[in-house]
């Protein structure tokens, strides 16, 4: 009786520990308030972390892009990027963001449960790399256009060959109307009178000869040197043409082509600006020390003030002095932000960017971009996984369904085949589930879709230890042993097989953990926890049930097994 008591106490302690680990606790989440700012809010949640594939979210792996020159101190650069990304994500508010270094040169970002994965990705991506680049003042790219056209035509590339024939009447997607007014280091009167909108107008700007060939007719002249406008619906075609090796080869050395981040609307149509920029930046975000958004008292427009380090200020002063009256593009992650402003005069270490009638939120976003943009090299996304929230919900529903059906079937089989002993084992199955989930919560492991599969699978496997024991008891009974002796021998003799076979399974699961990323790791953890708790339930809990049963019936001659 004493052994039974102490066994029950041990089981009780395990149960209490698991329930405690799983108990709903108060968590703080940052949610956007009515004014657009983030504020803390608390909810109670069961202490089980759900993976991205179950609650939706985004997983990104990032690396330093060293295609434009090696980074001197890679470790430091990664650490800085890590910090930058953390700050940014905190500012934007995600429940439990994970930002960590993977190996020497990779950063993994996981934003779970965000309602809009695209925005989350944008946040991380935009934090990458800020450059100030001059536009192609001398028209180097424009001079190269005829050659590019000829090369494309020679290669048989045409708008039609790229599989795109959009009627002129095709509805163009609504474009954000915020052609931001940017003023840097002083007021600039922007000339918008030359806004293109009609083809002949563009022809004037570019010169009639450019209308021949596959590419040029798609480019309209912009309002500044180096700016071209592409009708929104033609963007993919132009992008595809420029991606062709024939075209890429002919883009002049020292010139890069960058798309604008926002569309411009001209009349009823919407255009995406394409910029030819001088590749060498006159300044990078590295030297930016501070940036702040505010609403201008007079114009009520949003403004971002920024400040450069002393060294950065000197360089900037020199460069802007050389480029007075030229246009400078603010390039973030290879996307030109708003309209490149004109440099009116030399700028030192302080400047401001006016955003016109953009909202304060936009200005705050840009300020954050500038602040966080101080990366020594751009980051590139080497791996992305995004899961929409509804897919995750479906997965949970389907997984739960499969789990319940699997469980019921297994219970039926075991109870039918092993009768009373089977029922004792089945009675231990809820404890098995509790131990597994409790272990999950205690380890802070993340439950993933393959993890759910692993759980269902391990319900089947959990029975194995019981099967080994029961078969052994049957054999011992067949040898003519008394019930009590047979039960003891059954548990004892099955031990070796249970331990040896499970240790090897755990070994393989450990390697699975090592090889896998998020979802597969969840599977490996479930498998390991499942095996451990199935051993505990089969060897310890079921045995206790047996002992209790036998204790009440001292003279038992036959066992229902």
């Amino acid at each position, binding site marked *: 009786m004493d052994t039974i008591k102490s066994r029950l106490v041990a089981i009780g302690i395990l149960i209490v520990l698991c329930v405690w680990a799983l108990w709903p606790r108060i968590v703080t989440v940052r949610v956007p308030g009515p004014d657009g700012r983030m504020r803390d809010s608390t909810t109670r949640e069961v202490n089980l972390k759900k993976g991205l594939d179950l609650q939706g979210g985004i997983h990104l*792996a990032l*690396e330093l892009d060293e295609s434009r020159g090696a980074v001197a101190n890679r470790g430091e650069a990664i650490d800085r990027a890590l910090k930058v990304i953390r700050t940014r994500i905190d500012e934007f508010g995600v429940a439990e963001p994970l930002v960590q270094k993977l190996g020497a040169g990779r950063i993994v970002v996981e934003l779970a449960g965000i309602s809009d994965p695209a925005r989350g990705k944008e946040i991380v991506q935009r934090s990458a790399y800020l450059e100030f680049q001059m536009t192609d003042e001398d028209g180097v790219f424009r001079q190269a256009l005829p050659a590019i056209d000829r090369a494309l035509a020679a290669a048989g590339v045409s708008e039609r060959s790229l*599989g*795109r*024939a959009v009627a002129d009447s095709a509805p163009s*997607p609504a474009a954000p109307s915020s052609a931001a007014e940017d003023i840097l280091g002083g007021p600039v009167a922007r000339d918008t009178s030359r806004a293109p909108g009609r083809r002949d107008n563009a022809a004037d700007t570019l010169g009639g000869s450019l209308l021949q060939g596959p590419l040029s007719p798609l480019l309209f002249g912009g309002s500044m040197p180096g700016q071209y406008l592409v009708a929104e619906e033609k963007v*993919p075609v132009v992008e595809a043409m420029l*991606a062709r090796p024939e075209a890429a080869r002919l883009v002049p050395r020292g010139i890069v082509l960058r798309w604008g981040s926002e569309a411009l609307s001209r009349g009823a149509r919407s255009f995406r600006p394409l910029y030819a920029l001088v590749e060498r930046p006159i300044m990078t975000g590295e030297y930016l020390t501070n940036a702040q958004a505010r609403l201008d008292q007079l114009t009520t427009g949003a403004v971002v003030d920024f400040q450069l380090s002393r060294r950065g200020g000197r360089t900037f002063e020199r460069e802007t002095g050389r480029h007075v009256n030229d246009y400078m593009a603010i390039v973030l992650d290879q996307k030109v932000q708003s309209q490149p402003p004109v440099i009116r005069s030399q700028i030192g270490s302080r400047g401001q960017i006016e955003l016109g009638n953009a909202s304060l939120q936009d200005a705050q976003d840009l300020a954050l971009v500038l602040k966080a943009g101080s990366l020594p090299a751009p980051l*590139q*996304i*080497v*791996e*992305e*996984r*995004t899961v929409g929230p*509804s*897919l995750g919900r*479906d997965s949970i529903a*389907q997984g739960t369904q*499969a789990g319940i*059906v*699997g469980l019921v*079937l297994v219970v039926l089989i*075991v109870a*039918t085949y092993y*009768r009373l002993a089977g029922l004792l084992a089945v009675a231990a199955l809820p404890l098995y589930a509790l131990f597994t989930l409790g272990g999950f919560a205690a380890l802070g492991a993340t439950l993933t*879709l*393959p993890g759910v*599969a*692993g759980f*269902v*699978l391990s319900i*089947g*496997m959990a029975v*194995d230890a019981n*099967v*080994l024991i029961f*078969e052994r008891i*049957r*054999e011992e009974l*067949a040898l003519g042993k008394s019930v009590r002796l047979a039960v003891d021998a059954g548990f004892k*003799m099955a031990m*070796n*097989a249970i331990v*040896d*076979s499970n*240790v*090897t*399974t755990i*070994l*393989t*699961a450990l*390697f699975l953990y090592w*090889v*896998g990323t998020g*979802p*597969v790791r969840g*599977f*490996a953890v479930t*498998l390991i926890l499942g095996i451990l708790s199935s051993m505990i339930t089969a060897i310890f809990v079921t045995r206790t049930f047996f002992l209790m049963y036998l204790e009440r019936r001292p003279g038992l001659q036959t066992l229902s097994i």
Partner: protein
Amino acid sequence: MIRIFANANYDFLGYRRIAYFATGFFVVPAMLILLVFRGLNYSIEFTGGTLVQVAATRVVSASDLRAALARGGLAGAEIQAFGSPRDFVIRARLSARGTVDQQEAQRTSARVTETLTQEFGADAFTVERVEAVGPKVGGELRQKALGAILLSFLATLVYLAFRFELRFGVAAVLATAHDILATLAFVTYMNLEVSLVVVGGILTVVGYSLNDTIVIFDRVRENLHKYKRDDFAGILGRSVNETLPRTVMTGGTVIVALLALLALAGEVIRPFAWVMVFGVFTGTFSSIFIAAPILLAIERRWPGKDARGVKARVAPAGAAGGV
């Protein structure tokens, strides 16, 4: 009381040649297919590339989608209905010759969503899942997966050599290697996509098969002590038969749980469930028809000391009578 295979006495070892032939008949053509005609159908996690899963709000045909994507410069996109006629998985590439640089997968996924929005309107689709993997990450993963399988072999070998004897470990590992080949053959015939989850399935098969083999070997170890007069083949056969009820029972419950997964857990898990269903079958098969005969072959070729410290086969029965 229901009992299956109670007091079974099948001559499993006697059927080993038929079993070898059957397994060769299954595995060899698949290996030829893999080597000569086409490799495994790796998922983009391994090859690098872009996958976009979309759910349409109205019924759209795969060919409409294909045509729309082609107009957006994504010719040759592979489109697959995924579970329901409104769910599609799109595997696309921008450049003709696979994914070239790290950023391309990103650009491709953006292009797919842009194109669909332009062609069908913003409300026609929701993007359920995006996977964009650069080629470098994929290559690393392939190496790691192979490494994990090999290392798990090594670890098992060491553990079994320590707990049993080296030859038990060798037999178990060879049987498991057979299971991997058989599972790969199955994957080839079914043309399943080899994703990381499927590799996880294969590693789980490794675990299950070893588990199954070890239960038999554990009984062999025990019986070697118990029936010291029997020859090795007899003990092997007896052990396989004695553990047969457990083998069938456990295999049965695991398969039942797997069938629930296969039928109900959705499209993402299905390949994994298939691999596991087959793996449980082949793991059970190999424990009986591969692992045990190999152990016997090793014993015959290199008669060694076994767990009880004497030669397993004691030549004249009378000589050992006094033990």
